[in-house]
């Protein structure tokens, strides 16, 4: 039982990170109808920026304070992600208003490769360390309930907490502020939003900025676990089934989808793995999403598409 719980919790926590990346997809898709293939590249770019600036800033300023270095690097990285958002709108999206979905998808694929390349040119292509002081040692919990208790990775715990806070903050922003309302309006109907005086371009910059921040947070958390390296951009591909499962248009869907995939991966690896030879963690999520699509093509919480004939 305690082993099962341990696996379950581990799954929930890595699921939280998938949710975070998936959230980036959903935000941009909702607001602009663009499936942003570059979300993974943005995670990598943000992680590299964080890793390198936290290394460079102490050198430039000649200081020796890890905390301050991280804070400054974070601020600089946020600005870097804002600059990316602004440039994407300015140079790419603005020229593709009202184009086919496939055109926009290809454009984001282009942005993805561009960011991958440029990121490594500017920041280097080694594995860099992100040390934001995440606790590394595992802790024992619930020792009184189970024999031997359950072993929890503190780092995962903190990561899940941060992700949850970010999700709550974003939800409040979307539901309660005027800008959030404008974002939802643009998501529903571009033309109508524009005709009541909502500036599309500015809204897009804002969404890409928000997606940039989620990418940065995801990048820092994954980066501090695995190091900031190229493989981070493939993390996004693992979030794809999450998006399919949750529905492209649903924020709660992204979160719950992420948790299901996380738990499903871990449980299947542990309990099914031995029978089929292991390594099923890698493809399990995709298969789950595929089976899901057969029954609910719009995802768990996605809007059902009803076409008038």
């Amino acid at each position, binding site marked *: 039982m305690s082993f099962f719980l341990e696996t379950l919790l581990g799954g929930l926590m890595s699921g939280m990170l998938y949710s975070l990346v998936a959230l980036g997809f959903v935000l941009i898709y909702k607001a602009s109808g663009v499936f942003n293939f570059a979300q993974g590249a943005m995670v990598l770019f943000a992680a590299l920026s964080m890793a390198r600036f936290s290394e460079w800033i102490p050198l430039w300023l000649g200081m020796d304070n890890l905390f301050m270095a991280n804070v400054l690097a974070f601020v600089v990285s946020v600005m870097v992600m804002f600059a990316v958002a602004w440039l994407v709108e300015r140079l790419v999206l603005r020229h593709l208003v009202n184009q086919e979905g496939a055109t926009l998808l290809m454009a984001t694929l282009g942005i993805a490769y561009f960011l991958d390349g440029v990121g490594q040119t500017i920041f280097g292509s080694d594995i860099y360390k992100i040390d934001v002081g995440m606790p590394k040692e595992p802790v024992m919990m619930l020792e009184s309930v189970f024999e031997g208790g359950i072993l929890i990775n503190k780092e995962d715990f903190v990561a899940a907490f941060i992700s949850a806070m970010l999700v709550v903050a974003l939800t409040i922003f979307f539901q309660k502020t005027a800008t959030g309302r404008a974002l939802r*309006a643009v998501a529903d109907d571009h033309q109508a939003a524009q005709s009541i005086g909502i500036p599309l371009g500015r809204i897009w910059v804002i969404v890409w900025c928000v997606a940039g921040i989620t990418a940065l947070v995801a990048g820092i958390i994954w980066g501090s676990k695995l190091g900031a390296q190229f493989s981070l951009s493939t993390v996004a591909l693992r979030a794809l089934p999450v998006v399919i499962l949750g529905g492209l248009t649903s924020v709660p869907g992204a979160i719950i989808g992420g948790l299901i995939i996380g738990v499903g991966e871990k449980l299947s690896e542990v309990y099914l793995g031995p029978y089929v030879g292991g390594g099923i963690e890698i493809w399990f999520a995709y298969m789950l999403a595929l089976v899901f699509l057969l029954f609910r093509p719009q995802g768990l919480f996605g809007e059902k598409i009803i076409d008038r004939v």
Partner: protein
Amino acid sequence: MSGRKIGEVILDLKNISLSFGGVKALQDISFDVLEHEVRAIIGPNGAGKSSMLNVINGVYRPQHGEIILRGEHYANMNSYEAAKAGLARTFQNIALFKGMSVLDNIMTGRNLKMKANILQQAFWLGPAQREELEHRLKVEEIIDFLEIQHIRKTPVGRLPYGLQKRVDLARALAMEPQILLLDEPMAGMNVEEKQDMCRFILDVNDQFGTTVVLIEHDMGVVMDISDRVVVLDYGKKIGDGTPDEVRANPDVISAYLGASH
């Protein structure tokens, strides 16, 4: 007290031509709109009415012609700039934000009037908070005016068609426009709903002094509420004048009744 007193020319359209590839949607159309009047654009299906409205609203850019708003030329206006210039519109196939509540939909109409920046909003600081309340009051007034208090919190997607049309009007009114463009406000409504809508349009015109430009299909309704009417057919203007003048115009009669020329 009536705010209505027909004034100067507020919107002047000169020699507007618009084509999509080989299709000539509008050919050399000129007419003007006076401040505070109710101006209708009528015509049979495919006459170019909606194209005309979309030209005024900046959705389409005419290949030829001038749009003069309050004495200023607007050549390359998009619909965002049109909104800034004081033009609001409703849509033929209702373009509300379906997932949002009635209240939120109407609040979006206040977007241009909100000044608090995104940081103030994000942290729910004083200015953003005050502003939200201020605009909320204005929106509640409009909700009372259009008698939709009972559905304030309902997601618009769930409302019947007639009420959705009313919310669409409410959102446009929330912008406090100088000119209100209505694209077939009565289409698909039953008699009772049509009467309500007519009353609202006249009340808006009367109480707020808003200039109204409306497109309509149904001759009867238009003749009752408009001051002046433009008639289009196959992208050409075939009549312009008071409802009585237009009714007596032989070209208009043949366009509507399909008599041979």
